[in-house]
């Protein structure tokens, strides 16, 4: 069984999602549930902290693609932080760095929302 955990917390007006373990076609629905919850609560500023994520497949990448537009249409975004190199390489292979912001530290990503007002 793939181990995956997702946790949601608030940092000011920004929602931070911590992802941990293995994000694949089996576990991606858990992440979708969190995004659906954020939409219900009209929370559109999202930082995903990848510090403890060990593995991602396209099913996981697809979740971010499915929600980012809605976040942006509502003056929010999905920004990424603390990604390990092996995980970043997969995002890079698919061209994500052109369309998403990646930060080394969660704090930088959260502040970026502040800068945008």
């Amino acid at each position: 069984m793939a181990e995956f955990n997702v946790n949601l917390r608030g940092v000011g007006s920004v929602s931070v999602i911590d992802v941990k373990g293995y994000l694949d076609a089996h576990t991606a629905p858990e992440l979708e549930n969190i995004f659906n919850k954020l939409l219900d609560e009209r929370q559109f500023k999202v930082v995903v902290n990848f510090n403890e994520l060990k593995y991602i497949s396209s099913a996981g990448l697809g979740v971010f693609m499915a929600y980012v537009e809605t976040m942006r249409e509502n003056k929010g975004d999905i920004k990424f932080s603390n990604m390990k190199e092996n995980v970043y390489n997969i995002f890079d292979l698919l061209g994500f760095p052109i369309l998403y912001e990646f930060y080394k530290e969660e704090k930088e990503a959260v502040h970026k929302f502040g800068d945008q007002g």
Partner: protein
Amino acid sequence: MNSYNKIFEKELLIKSKTDNLAVIRDFIKSAADQSGFSEDTVGKIILAVDEACTNIIKHAYKSSPEGNIIIKIKFNDPKFSISITDEGSHFDPNKVPEPNLREYYKEKRVGGLGVFLIKKLMDEVNYSTLSGNKNQVILVKYLPN
């Protein structure tokens, strides 16, 4: 010193459930490690097989958990070959367009990335239809000198 096997074969027969993806990844990892691939390359092979099996589960078997997936690994230094066979609906990878990420997320089309990733991650990818309505994809990675 690590000693690696130069020639071996392994086989896994598994049902088409997404919670088996972790089992499949462990199976591939152990075989790729034994062959002497770098950690980085082992990661690529694992992901390619995960993507191929995810496509089989979702598309060939339309998420029914009763389908069979047969994974056979053949290593004959330097060729590491993984054949993945299913008995589900035929899948034509040539009908999957190269993804344009910007268009993709606008259209909320989240499938199709897997096929593209597999091509990027492996040295050779071959899809074929076998007798008895079986589909097979063979993924190959060569061990560098």
